[in-house]
């Protein structure tokens, strides 16, 4: 069971990393607007190629 002494700190470090990533995301403004990106993602990959001009 002594593996616990290794695994638990590891798990906590992982959780800390995830938390750090989230805080960074919030501070960079990614959570300010929760509605537009959901719609934006629908169209983003279909970029203008000049072909849809009739």
């Amino acid at each position, binding site marked *: 069971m002594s593996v616990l002494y290794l695994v638990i700190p590891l798990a906590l470090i992982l959780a800390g990393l995830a938390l750090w990533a989230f805080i960074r995301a919030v501070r960079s403004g990614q959570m300010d607007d929760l509605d537009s990106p959901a*719609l934006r993602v629908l169209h983003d990959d279909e970029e203008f190629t000049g072909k849809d001009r*009739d």
Partner: protein
Amino acid sequence: MTPPEGQTASPDAPATCIHCGLPVPRGLYDPDAEHQFCCNGCRGAYELIHSCGLDRFYAVRDESDAEPARAVGRDYDEFDDDAFRRLYCRQLDEKHWATELVLEGVHCAACLWLIERLPRVCPGVIEARLDIARSTVTVVWDDTAVPLSRVAHTLDTLGYPPHPARSVRARDLRRKENRTALIRVAVSGALAGNVMLLAIALYGGMFGGIEHAHETLFRYLSAALGLLALLWPGRVFFTGAIAATRARAWSLDLPIALGLTVGGITGLVNTVRGTGEIYFDSITMLVFLLLVGRAFQRRQQAAAADSVELLYALTPRRARRVEGETTREVPIEAVCVADLLEVRPDEVVPADGVVETGDSSIDASMLTGESRPEPIGPGEAITAGSVNLASTIRVRTTAVGEGTRVGKLMRTIEQLSSARPPVLHAEDRIAGWFVTAVLVLAAATFAIWAPRSLPEAATHAMTLLIVTCPCALGLATPLAATVAVGRAARRGILVKGGDVLERLTTSGTIVLDKTGTVTEGRFTLARWCSDEACKPLVRALEEHSTHPVGRALRDTLPDGPEPDRVERLPGEGVEGRFGETSVFVGSPAAAAARFGEPPSELADALARAQNDALTPVLVAVDGRVVALAALGDRVRDDICGAIEGLRAHGWSVRIASGDDPSVVAAVARDVGIDDAEGALTPEGKLALVEQLAVVGPVVMVGDGVNDAAALARATVGIAVHGGAEASLAAADVYLNRAGLAPVVELLDGARRTVRTIHTALGVSLVYNAGAASFAMAGLIHPLAAAILMPISSATVLALAVHRRSFGAGP
């Protein structure tokens, strides 16, 4: 790609507009054209979209959502003004600038797609990002390549008229607070989750056995994470409690902070001692749940504030300044005293001044409550906020900005709003004696058990403090209020804060403004007597009239044939010929002079109209008076039902208006209200509200600048649909739907919400009382407490969210 519609049109089935999908009017149908348009706005938008190769817009949008392009077609000159730049734009580097613009007409994913392709439509724009919830686009543009007015004009052509986004600073501040709140939730959530995992292992160990070394490890880890939760995200409760203590006020933060401190210290002591409950799972969960509740509340209030700010942005902030031979649009902030401004029909006068040239009539109902248009001519003073009705006038300004009458009123409102005493929430009141009771009980428990065993006495007292944690108390109220405010917003009732609902539960007096609240606030056809057949003829005669009477008739009567000859008779009316038929429309005096007394039936109607303070107009066909049109400010259709609804809630209803007393009396009689006062100044309305507030709660419902001070002073101020900016700023609630029916709904909803809150509080108090007595008797096992606590919270939360508040039918 193929445009979706508008191609297969035959004269029988009218063609649909390729841009918005609405039927194309017969007159605009062009059988030879490739595409059909319902209006010029749609044509402009389509041509621009098509020429930029963005036809995909028509494929990505949801067709049921399509709306006609509502281009205004302005030049947006004022967007290039230095004053505008200083106020609304910021410079990024040498040539790049950024600004935020609020757009009208944004409603779907396709709008987002189109607007964010602005760099392609308008070269020189570097980036456009739309925040769809707030209809606000952030534009970055190269100032050397394109002026902002061109960008604005392009957005306008696409069908999204732009407006400068105001109060950006307040929003930035709110955004920063939101971020901090979100981070707190995230941190406390992560800590609570991890402590919970450790707690499960510990509880498991209680039943299945656990190695001592592991138990110690888990307990120390829990303590570390728990203390982190208390000191980082949980710090808000301590600072709040300290602030409340300094202000000698009871706040919910106080019992929470107390519970957290006691729990934290006990847990820490027990961790070091190696025996006893450590409580860190409960503590971290409590911090997390409370922060989630507060984050919800914050988000909801921010949404309401955003919607009101959107409305602010739509009020025009520009003036047309005369510069030599030409006029130029400038932002209102750039107008100086002694400037010459041009005000066209239907425009709002931007500053106080004196008319220099032009005769017109103005609608000052927003300022004074006066419902009848007033004539105005050279040399007469005019106040900012009145609407020019008839023809273009030029005004020499005498006061601008804060110096105008409206500006001074706005300052009074700010003072009144900040001076309003803070409301003591039910939850805070309960929190006050709750924490006292818990402390007394804890002391009693300790005293009872102390003679037997000191450590045992301490344990039982601590158990009591923990088990009675005010989690449900803290979450139930904000959550129920938040849910209610959100539901209300969906029904067109924007509430600026959850505590407004609490203030609406005790009945008192509702003071209604007349013009624009009880009535429609427009000069319009109120009554038509006798002959219906001549209506189209009257309309045809008034087709090009600029007189307020003519405009009111034109807006309400059906289309008519083209007259052969029209002659205007200043001060009397208008006369015209349709083939052999001659028609006269004019004042009763002019009609009497020409055609003698009207027939008795019309004479009665005339007397009645004059008695009701309406403006009568007689219609004569071929020398015979045949009909009477009575014009005035019409009472809203749903008003009587709404007033009954208000009375059914126990409120007494009265009218306070700035309009002529005879008009006010007539309207009050019409809707069945006994207490009605007219000719009130804004200060008079304020005094009335203050006087009524001594007796009980006062709700003020109004729309005008003249109501704003009273709105700010009232227990709750409600601004109705279409109200002036000042009233928006002053009110606690803004109705996004016309009429008074939403007020009744608001009272209903408030009552239901507060009942829900009380039920939730009751349940949580009963639970706490039960738990406290068990704890005092020393009967509660820590495990049982750990299970009971979340169950009670969940019950209370389910109650708070599930109970219907708004939109639950009758």
